[in-house]
């Protein structure tokens, strides 16, 4: 079937088998391997992309269903201005470890912030509850999304700052060390 899809701002016209999943189309036809696949049951969410701005699990969308839509994958987050605030925040807040769930988590975070510029912790946790992470216990993912929200509001000084703290000791150690 013929489809037309805009992916990360680039228009693609293609002929695909009706059964091809959007995740496979993005990964194998377009080479956008930042979108991952982690389960067979729409449970883990690592394949999440934005379809017309809304998070969808691309392993449960046929490529033909994405006809005439705008898709954003992790590769589309960075712009001419540099990294997106959500990307900076994930690094700054140590919001990732193995990196496998990260592209999806960042896209869901981005979509959340666009809807709700100042999400509280519960709202962030609810928003990412369709996405699993096995490494982080979600603690720093939540922090990263909230930090990116603060940055996007221009009130970064109220939350964790997104300046390059590369060589600073961890500000998160609250340990009473004796």
């Amino acid at each position, binding site marked *: 079937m013929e489809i037309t899809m805009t992916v990360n701002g680039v228009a693609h016209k293609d002929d695909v088998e009706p*059964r091809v999943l959007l995740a496979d189309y993005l*990964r*194998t036809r377009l*080479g956008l*391997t*930042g*979108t*991952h696949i*982690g*389960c*067979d*049951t729409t*449970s*883990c969410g*690592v394949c999440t992309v934005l379809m017309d701005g809304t998070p969808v699990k691309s392993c449960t969308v046929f490529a033909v269903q994405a006809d005439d839509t705008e898709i954003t*994958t*992790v*590769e589309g*987050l960075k712009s001419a201005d540099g990294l997106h605030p959500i*990307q900076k925040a*994930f*690094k*700054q807040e*140590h919001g*990732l*470890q*193995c*990196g*496998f769930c*990260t*592209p999806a988590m960042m896209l869901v975070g981005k979509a959340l912030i666009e809807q709700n510029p100042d999400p509280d912790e519960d709202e*962030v*946790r609810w928003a990412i*509850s*369709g*996405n*699993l*992470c*096995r*490494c*982080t*216990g*979600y603690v*720093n*993912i*939540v922090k990263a999304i909230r930090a990116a929200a603060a940055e996007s509001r221009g009130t970064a000084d109220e939350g964790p700052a997104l300046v*390059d*703290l*590369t*060589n*600073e*000791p*961890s500000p*998160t*150690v*609250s*340990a*009473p*060390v*004796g």
Partner: protein
Amino acid sequence: MTTTEQPRTSPEICGLGHSPRRIEDDRFIQGAGHYVDDIVLPGMLHMAILRSPVPHARIVSIDTSEATALPGVVAVVTGELMAQHNLAWMPTMSGDTQAVLATDKVRFQGQEVAAVIADTVYTAWDALELIDVDYEELPVLVDPRKSLEPDAVLIRDDKEGQTDNQCYHWESGDKGTTDRAFAEADRVVTLDTHYPRSHPAPLETCGCVADIDPATGHANIYMTSQAPHAHRTVFALVAGLPEEKIRIISPDIGGGFGNKVPVYPGYVVATAASLLLGHPVKWVESRSENLISTGFARDYHMHGELALRGDGRILGLRVNLISDNGAFFSDAQPTKFKAGLFHIVTGSYDYTAAHVVADGAYTNKAPGGVAYRCSFRVTEASYLIERLMESAALELDIDPAELRRRNFIKSEQFPYASPTGFVYDSGEYERALDVALDQVGYDDLRREQRERRDRGDETLLGIGIASFTEVVGAGNSRDFDILGLKMFDSAELRVHPTGKAILKLGVKSQGQGHETTYPQIVAEELGIPASHIRVEEGDTDTTPYGLGTYASRSTPVAGAATAMVARKLREKGRKIAAHLLEASEEDLDWEPGRFFVKGAKERGVTIQDVAFAAYTNFPEGMEPGFEGVHYYDPPNMTYPFGSYVAVVEVDTGTGKWRVRRMVAVDDCGVRINPMIVEGQIHGGLAEGFAMSNMQFITFDDSGNCIGSNFMDYLIPTAYETPRFELGATVTPSPHHPIGAKGVGESATVGSPAAYVNAVIDALSHLGVRNIDMPVLPHRVWQAIQEAKH
């Protein structure tokens, strides 16, 4: 010694104790990580595996004709074909054998029966449905206790001399001393508990791309491998390929947690297929395949007894356990001990008598027994002793914190010889507990608990403690090997003329942040800024030999090797500095990054000057260059510890419970990068919560796996996962070059008992003493009803 260690180096050098953001994140946040399934090679074919739908059956026939005829199918591989190449069976890491593709029988649901190689993965999956296998079903064993009964059907009839379903018998400690301790005891407390079967389930499943060049015989195998070097040697031994022609490349790994330590049949079949077809062959598991066939964890049926004096002092411990090892004994553990390091079960407590008896059983379930975020059965051990401590506290009516205090090994007793043969390196157990209790506000919580009970609240409060001791960092070469390979590790450091460096390691990160932390060790020892050091791992052609990353062994072993190789270069650097400064070596002092003349600090040379001189102006007779390699054989294991306090609220009407607080105080020795250490603990606490609350794999009586996908095998999301509060004490390991102990698994090991103890604590006044994990609401409700009657 317990100290707060302020960084000794400047933020520019960024040695130990700094928390630089991670180097590796730059690619991950841009979707530029490079995982196995991202690899595309010219002419690459795709493989899919046909798995048995039944758990125990004789294979009568396999008809592949229809599948072979499907357009796009290149080959269909069966066990018969593998047997022609002597590859139908392979050795496991536990000295057993495992079928690669079944030839005689299938022994668990999901076992590999045949494989299709096709032009696309969609075609390969289509073809699986066209293979016709005729099975003659046999009786099924899913309970290891029934497996061990004398008249049970024999599962491993392939093994010569095997007449029953027992796969091992193992004992540790001393029976006589322990029997005497029990004879003298005022009280004996017992606990029967099942640590349920679980699965590491990293979000990236297992897979490989095997690429054997038909012209040269060179094999490039891209693999989700936590231990690429060990796997290369296993491939050489199993497949008979010359080892110099095998290159295992482990690219970015999307989580491992022990799941990617074993060699799986899929790797072997894909490699054989590439060899036979002359094309690269990719195989990537589906999630369901991952859960039903690759290394599971736990599944221990444990009976524990503690002998106590009336004042709460422990006199002895007795454990009898049956482990369910599935159809093949493939515990991915490299010790001579059949139950791994389970004999750490004596815990953080001081007593002289212990006896452990373990029996392993074959069942018609998936093989495994991997160390899921755990150092070879330490999780089961820690859970049993910490649950027994809760039972003892309740039976003796002593506060559980106080009972632990009365029995802790004291800091002056280290190094401490345990009754099962370990020598604990260092610990300050009481301090860690005090910090945790103080942080959680223990006394206030106990008051609130009493008040709620007095008021007759339907929602009760429970406070659960776990003061665990781990044993990690396998290992020393006396006790640890994989198929004879001693468990050392290695580091190679090459400093370039401009003072920048590359560090090559035999281990392999799966998210632990090696590219950031190991440069910090070099920075500490050699003064080269951490940001000037690139790390290379996972390619057996370019990195020195090592045994891999699992069981929290990277920092204890490869981290030590890194410190040692940096020290070697510092000593060479001292000679070069003496030459440059025209001084004798003895007259030089060192500060991070710089040699200078004693008493004349301004007369000095930087490490960068020294590196440049190593290539341009070295002393006559000196070997040029500035690089070295170190292979480190640890003198002992390391023993991280901690105290966790979980505070839960239990709804007695529904049995539902939620975590109100989780305070975790860890002591992993010297912390290289506190930010990364804390991230590791967060992850472990979440996985411990998962096991205590929802995550388990079970089987119905017919041997069907319940938990074969993420809709049935429940992984907590951000919404269910509790919030965590961390604390730390620092007690360096006395035998590790930088005093570090390893931290990746502490929280998975320590936290399950804390959560469960908290639920039991909430209900203890009703008479509830045990609920097995996962502590599901209906189990809680049932325990309350049973206690009432």
